[in-house]
């Protein structure tokens, strides 16, 4: 296989678009997720279009105990790992339901730590490759509207930052992707401002560029870097009164 990339959470719109970018560049692909039947169809599609090898593999982010066996069971060691799973969850439900906040935290954070720990160790041994984690601008500052989700993403961003620090010099690069609004199925019920909202294809192009151009942190769309700079700069005294 030529530089295979493992996409975790390959059923998401952004992951699907990224799979096309990676496939077009000649990478073989593992599409990992829970809906194996659909992932196998996606894999077949990518194989026909780009003449690569692609395979759907079953992966459950919440089944932490399975992660090591899952990773080591892959036929060929991945050259790159893209972490694309995540859920928005129901933030208001999370205020009253333990089940809900656990699901948000475990999917967006704990599950990531679990699988990336295995991946990082294997890549470090191989002395080459990359990890690209899709976090969120929501992790840059906690807001009333989505702070459970945001805090899990903040945890993920911090984890990726630490991992980048650890693996620096080992030949393994770590990329943190912070999408702003992206028009996907995850956000289909939200009313998003069109000027700030990326299509999954635009986001995928940004992520692919970040992977090839050796960037550390990438915002998509780019304008979010500046938006978040402003938002992070607002003093807490003022921020706590705001509703944004």
């Amino acid at each position, binding site marked *: 296989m030529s530089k295979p990339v493992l996409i975790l959470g390959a059923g998401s719109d952004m992951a699907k678009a990224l799979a096309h970018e990676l496939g077009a560049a000649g990478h073989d692909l593992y599409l990992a997720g829970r*809906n194996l039947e*659909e992932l196998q*169809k*996606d894999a*077949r*599609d990518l194989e*026909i*279009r780009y003449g690569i090898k692609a395979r759907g593999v079953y992966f459950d982010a919440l089944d932490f105990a399975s992660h090591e066996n899952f990773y080591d069971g892959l036929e060929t060691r991945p050259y790159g790992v893209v972490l694309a799973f995540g859920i928005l969850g129901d933030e208001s439900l999370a205020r009253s339901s333990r089940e809900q906040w656990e699901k948000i935290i475990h999917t967006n954070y704990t599950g990531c730590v679990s699988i990336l720990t295995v991946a990082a160790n294997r890549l470090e041994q191989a002395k080459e490759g990359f990890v690209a984690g899709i976090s969120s601008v929501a992790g840059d500052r906690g807001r009333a509207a989505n702070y459970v989700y945001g805090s899990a993403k903040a945890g993920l961003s911090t984890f990726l930052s630490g991992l980048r620090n650890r693996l620096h010099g080992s030949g393994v690069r770590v990329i943190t992707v912070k999408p702003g609004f992206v028009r996907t*199925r995850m956000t289909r019920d939200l009313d998003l401002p069109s000027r700030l909202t990326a299509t999954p294809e635009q986001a995928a192009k940004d992520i692919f560029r970040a992977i090839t151009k050796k960037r550390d942190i990438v915002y998509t769309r780019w304008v979010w870097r500046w938006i978040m700079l402003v938002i992070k700069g607002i003093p807490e005294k003022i921020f706590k009164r705001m509703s944004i």
Partner: protein
Amino acid sequence: MLVSNWNNYPRVEAALADFRSQDEALSILEEANKCIPRGLGRSYGDCSLGADIISTPGFKRLIHLDPQKGTLECESGTSLDQILSVIIPHGWFLPVTPGTSRITLGGAISSDVHGKNHHLHGAFGRHVLDLRLLTPQGQVLECSRNENPEIFQAVCGGMGLLGLILSARISLMPLESVFIRQKTIPAADLDQLMGLFESYHQSTYTVAWMDCLKSGRNLGRGLFMHGEHCRAGEASRRGLTHPDSKVLSLPFNLPFRALSPLGIKAFNSLYFYRKSRRTGYQFSNIASFFYPLDVIDNWNLLYGKKGFLQYQFVLPSRNSREGLQKILQHINSFGQPPYLAVLKLLGPGEGPLSFAQYGYTLALDFPMRPGVFSLLKALDRVVQKLGGRIYLAKDARMQKHMFWQGYPRAKEFLELKKKLDPENKLSSLQSRRLGLCQNQY
């Protein structure tokens, strides 16, 4: 959101539901009360409009390519453009292609689209080997010429009214070169133009541009074009790559008076004389030969916000000459010049709602101006009287009686629809206008 098709008329408030898998499609269909499938919205009118739309372009995976036999199976939302970019490098081409590649496979089948080679190779449906149809009752039917043949024929050209096409397998045509050898022949009048179609009947691709503003002796003046695929190495040594020309896009709607009748007249003359001078064979690549307008991403905006109407009819061959003459006279007397007029000789059609029949088809683009509807009514009368019909994919205003007279096999179609869709779930603004719902004719 407001949705309209390519001609921006009509514009209706609609909810779009998209799907990525058969299961998702099924649940949309189960929950819907009334809905209609829609692809990339390149039809001209309301055939894929309604309050609830099942949007197919997200369902676009390739399922199987047989590069030896030349067959491709893919999901119905796949665009012809995507198909071409995959099959051309393997040395294959679409056996039938319309004037744009930005349509979906499902749309191509549902409108049973035709190309410049219809007289020899028929419409798109002829090259479909089999398809999978999700019926409004939630069944998946395998349809082909052997299995459910009646349904198969009716789905080709069936305007998405019998079920949602999930996927289809099509046969491809071998391709040696991405170039077309074409020739343009000027014709001084309608007789000459029609004569050229007859004498070049064996040419693979034939089509004509017509200057609708000429009257009297020059009525029906035009440019006839015929083309053939080049053999390997004939035009260039370049390999088989999808000639993806750079796409331009217009930044805004042009004010709709940008092209006045006088301007069109001047343009037509200029175009006619320039093209008439170049008489030898010319080579053009597939993209510029088949999809000249695809390079401008949104050329429909040239017609302004109000949009435009495309009027495409076909007349039985025995009445074609008389009909075309009358149509041109009407256009002249109404002073409503079409921006574009394309003439083509078609072969016989197949499905019960398929547009094609043996005879001449003329496609006319009219900007939305006061009086255009009454002109089209006058044209309707000519077409109806001479046994012709209007293309459903390009209709936004035809009346019911005109449809039922033009499509005598519609009753047969409706019988089938009653069986497959007893609750009449699948309907569009067009199908309701035309009475293509049960118990309505």
